[in-house]
C-alpha cells in the first residue's frame, strides 16, 4: 500500500494542506462511492456536468479549511464511511436546492423538478455497497503490490484469484489449464484468500488506526453488505 503508514484522516489533513498527490489519491480512493451515491440519487441520466461538479464539491468540502473535516470526529460511529456519506448527502441537497431555484427562474412551464430518490435507506445501501467495493479493490491492489515484491508464487496466487472471480473458472479447470496438481492448487487458493484477507484488514486499519478490533468488525460488515 502506497500510504500504508498513514490513515485516512492523516491523508485528508495532507490533502487539505495542499498536497497534490494526497488529494489525487484521496479522490481516486473515494470517488466511486460518492459517484455511485449521486447517480443513485439523481438517476443515471443526470446532467453529467452537474454530477462532476457535485463530485468536486464533495472533495472540496472535505479539504476546505474549517469545513467538514474540522468538525469530523475520528471516533464517531461508522468512522470515515459515515463521515463521507454525510458530506456527500449535504452536497447533493445543496445542488438540488440550487437546481430548484434555477428551474423556478428559467423554466418555460414545460419542465418539472426532476425526480429525486429520497429514500435514505436505499441511498445509504448504495453508498455502502460502492464503498465496500472500493475497499475490496483497494485490498486487491495492495495484494498485487505485495505480490510484486514477494515473487512469482505470490503473483501466481493473485492471478489464481482473478481467474476464479473474474473469469469464473473452477479451480480444477485452472489446474488443468496450468497443468498443476489440483490439491496443491487448492492450497494455493486458500493461501491467496488469506493474503487477500490480510490486505483487507490492512486497508481497514487505514480507516480505524486506533482500534484493530473495530477494523475487523468493519471488515465483516463490508463483506456482509456485499454478500
Amino acid at each position, binding site marked *: 500500500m502506497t500510504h500504508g503508514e498513514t490513515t485516512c484522516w492523516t491523508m485528508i489533513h495532507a490533502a487539505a494542506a495542499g498536497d497534490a498527490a494526497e488529494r489525487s489519491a484521496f479522490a481516486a480512493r473515494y470517488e466511486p462511492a460518492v459517484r455511485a451515491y449521486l447517480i*443513485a440519487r439523481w438517476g443515471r441520466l443526470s446532467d453529467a456536468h452537474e454530477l462532476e461538479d457535485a463530485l468536486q464539491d464533495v472533495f472540496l468540502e472535505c479539504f476546505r479549511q474549517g469545513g467538514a473535516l474540522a468538525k469530523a470526529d475520528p471516533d464517531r460511529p461508522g468512522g470515515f464511511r459515515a463521515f463521507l456519506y454525510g458530506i456527500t448527502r449535504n452536497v447533493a441537497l445543496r445542488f438540488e436546492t440550487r437546481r430548484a431555484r434555477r428551474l423556478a427562474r428559467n423554466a418555460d412551464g414545460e419542465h418539472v423538478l426532476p425526480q429525486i430518490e429520497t429514500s435514505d435507506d436505499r441511498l445509504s445501501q448504495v453508498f455502502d455497497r460502492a464503498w465496500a467495493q472500493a475497499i475490496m479493490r483497494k485490498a486487491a491492489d495492495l495484494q498485487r503490490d505485495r505480490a510484486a515484491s514477494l515473487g512469482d508464487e505470490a503473483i501466481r496466487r493473485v492471478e489464481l484469484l482473478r481467474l476464479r472471480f473474474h473469469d469464473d473458472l473452477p479451480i480444477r479447470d485452472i489446474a488443468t489449464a496450468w497443468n498443476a496438481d489440483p490439491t496443491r492448487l487448492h492450497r494455493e487458493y486458500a493461501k491467496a484468500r488469506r493474503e487477500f484477507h490480510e490486505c483487507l484488514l490492512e486497508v481497514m486499519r487505514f480507516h480505524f488506526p486506533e482500534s484493530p478490533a473495530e477494523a475487523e468488525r468493519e471488515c465483516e460488515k463490508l463483506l456482509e453488505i456485499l454478500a
Partner: protein
Amino acid sequence: MNPFDDTQPEETGGRLDAGLRAAFGPADDSGVEGWPESVVATLDQAMGIHSRVSLRDDSDGAGPLCRPRTDELEDSEGRIGRYQLAGEIARGGMGVVLRGRDVDLGRDVAIKMLRGRHAANPAMVRRFLEEAQIAGQLQHPGILPVYELGVRRADRPYFAMKLVKGRTLATLLRERRAPGDERRRFLTIFEHVCQTMAYAHARGVVHRDLKPSNIMVGAFGETQIVDWGLAKVLGRSSLSTTGEDETQAERAIETARSGDSGSQSIAGAMMGTPAYMPVEQAQGAVAQVDERSDVFALGAILCEILTGGPAYVGAGDEVIRRAKQGDVSDALSRLRASGEDPLLTVIAERCLARNPEDRPRDAGALTTDVSRYLADLEASAQAAKVAAAAAEAKAAEERRARRLTIALAASLFFVVALVGAGFYWRAESQRERVAEATGLAGAALERAASQLGQAKASRADDDAAWEAAVAAGEQLERLIAAGPVEENTRSRADALLADLRAADADRRLLALTDDIVQQGATHSDVDSWKQMDDAYVEAFRDAGIDVRTASDEAIAAWIRKSEHPERLANAFELWVWTGEDLRHRFGVDRYTRSLRERATPIFLADTDPFRTKLRDQMYRLAPESNTIDVNVLRELADDPAFETAPATSLSWLGTCFFSAREPDFVGGMRVYRRAVALYPDDFLLNSDYARMLAMLGKDAEASRILSRCVALRPDVSGAWRTLGITLRKLESCQEAIEAIRRAISLQPDHMPTYVDLWLTCVAMGNLTDATSALDKAKSLAGDAIETHVMLMRALPERSPMERTGQLERAIALLESARSELPDDADSRSLLDAWMTECRRAIEYREATLPEVPEWAMPETSDEASR
C-alpha cells in the same frame, strides 16, 4: 463459518467470496465505473494516443434544462450510439429529445428519438425519418444541423443534432413588460425567421407548426427554427408558384417517402397549433396547405410580437372554433388598436387573410416586405442621426466663429453640406416611402376594385362576396390613411371607397327590408304589421331618408341612385302597402295621403314598362280605386317580360288575379306556378303562393309549399306558425304542434301563436296543454278581450255553426268592454281595431267561396311542365 477457512471447497464459498468477486471480478454495472469506451479511449488503450481537447464553455446562454431520468429508456442505458446521455430535455407526441454528449468530439448534442410506443408503427417511423431527412437536407444558419441518423436496438431511430443553447421566442415574448418593449429586437428576430422559412419554401418544405415556442433565440440574437416533425414536402403540383421549368420543378427535398403514395397527413385531421393555424389547416384540408399556410403562422407570430397575443386567443375550444372558422376579427382589432405603424400592421393583416390567395405567396415575399420596412426604419434613424450631427457641428462652429473668421466660412460650408446631405437623405427616404406606400395602396386598390366588381356581379344577398369586398376596402382605407400616397392613387382610392360604401349600404338596406317583410308579413295580427311599418321607416331613416316627410321627388331620386333601384323600389312599395293593410285590414290609419299618392315616388323612380303597367292595376286594389282589368293582367302574364320580372312583381300579379275574382282563379294559379318555377328559392313568393292555396282550401299543397318556406328561412317564426295552422287543418295535429312550438321558440312573446297552440291542443283533446297555452296567451295579452279576439280570428276554420255563435258573442263582449277600457286614444284605437277584425271575420264567413275548380287539384306532370 470462517470465511477464510481454506479447507472449504470454493463451490460453497463464504462471504469472502463476495469480497473477492468485488475485488477481482468484472466491474459492477452500477454507474460506479467510468463511461463506456469511446474511439478516443480505444485509441488510448491500443496506441497510447491520448487526446482530450476541451474548449472554453459556450457562452451563448444556458443549455436547456432537463430531467435526469427518462422513462423512454431503461435505467441501465447510459448511452445511445456514441453519445453519453445526460437526461431528457423535452418530449412530444412522436419523439423524445434527450441531452447527450459526444465523448469523442467533446460536444453536447440533442438527440431526438422515436418514442417507444411508436416503434412498431411503420407510418410513425416513416414520419420520424422524414423529419430527420428534411432537417438534414435543409442547410441554413436558421435551421439546426443534423449530425447523425442512427437506430437504437434496431427499432428506435434517432438523430443527433446541435444542442441549442438559448431561450424560446415564446419565453422572451412572455417576459416583456408590454408588447411594445424591445420592438426592434423582436422584429429583427422575426425577419430572421422569415428568411429561414423563405429558404425552406424555396426548397419545397412547409413547416406547418411555426410558433414562438419552436423558435430558439441565442444570446447573440441568432435565431433557429426547430421541430420539423410536422413538415410537409410539397410536390410539384402543390407549389404555389407556377410556370416553373419542368426540370427545376423536381422535388427540392428527397425523403424516404418521396414518391410514396402513403400520405403523411391524414385528410380531415388537424395538425399543428390552433392559435397559429390558418383556416385550411384547421379544417384538415391537407391538400390546400402550402407555403401560404406558413405565411399565416408567421403573421400570427408578428401579431403576437405587436399585440402580445397570436391570431386566436381564448380558451382551448374557443381557439379551435375560431381557427376552424378562420375568424381573425379579434386579431385584426388588436392590431389596429396597438398603435403600431400601420405599414407594419398591414403586413400582419395580409398574412392573416382568411383566403390564402390574399396572403403573400410565400415567406420569400413576406421577407421582402419585412426587410424593406426595417430598412426604411433604419434609414429614418440614420437621417435623424445625420441631422443631429449637423446640428451639433453647427453649434460647435458657432462657438469657434467668434475667434476665427476664416474658420467660420469653411465650417459653415461644411455645416451646410452636412445639413444638405441630411435633407437630401430625408427627401430621398421620403420619396421611397411614398413610392412604397403608393405601391402597397395601388395593390390594395386593385384588389378592392376586383372584389367590388365580383360582389356587384353577384346577388345582393351573397354575403361572402360583399364581406370580402368590404374587407378589401377597409385594408385600402388603412393604407391610404397610414402613409404618404401619390395624389392620383389617393383620389382613385377615394372614389372606389365611396362607391363601395354606397353599394354596401344599399346591400345592407335591402337585406334588412327583406327580413322585415319576411318576419312581419307572415303573421296576420295588427301588432306585427305595426312593427313592420315602424321597422321600415327606421331602416329607411338609417339609410339616409325619412320617407314620411321627404318629397316624392327626393325619394324617387334616392331610389334611382341605388345599385339595385328596382329592389329598393319594391322595398319602398312594401312599406306603402303595409300602411294600406294597417288601414284596410286593422283600421289603423297612420298616413293621411292615399295609397296611390304615397306610391308616387315608385312611379317616378321605376319606369320599367312591365312593372308600371302592373302597378297601374295593383293600385286599383285599394277600395277607393277602379276595378282591376283582368284583360290587362292576362296581357302581363303573356308578356315576354314576365320571364325576367322580379319575383315580387310576379307575386303582385298573382295577387291581382285573385283580387279580380276571375272565374276559377285560373290566371292567378298559373301566374304563381310559373313564378315559383322561375324563383323556387324566393321565400316571399312561396309564402304568398301558399297563402293563396290555403284560401282556396288546397291545404295539402299549401303545406308542401310552406315546408319549402321553413326550409328556406327556418328562422322566421310566422312561416312555422302558418305551417302549423295548415297542418292542423289537415288534421296532422302532432306535426302542427311541433311546427307551432318551433314558432314559439323563435318568437316566445307572440301572443297569437299561443292561441294557435291552444286551438291545436283543443283539436287533439289535450286539455292540459290547451289550458296552459291559453293562460300564456292571456298573460301576454294582458287583457282577456284581446285573447278573445284572437280566438275569433281562428274561428273561420271551424264549423259554420260554431263560428256564428262565437263571433256574435265576441262582438257583444267587445261592446261591453268599451266602457271598461281606459279613456284614451290608444285604447279606443285598439278596441276599434278588434271590432274591425270581428266584422271582417263575419264578412269572410258570409262570403261564398266558389267550388274548387279542376285546375286547382294537385299538380300533374302536364301542369308542372306548363
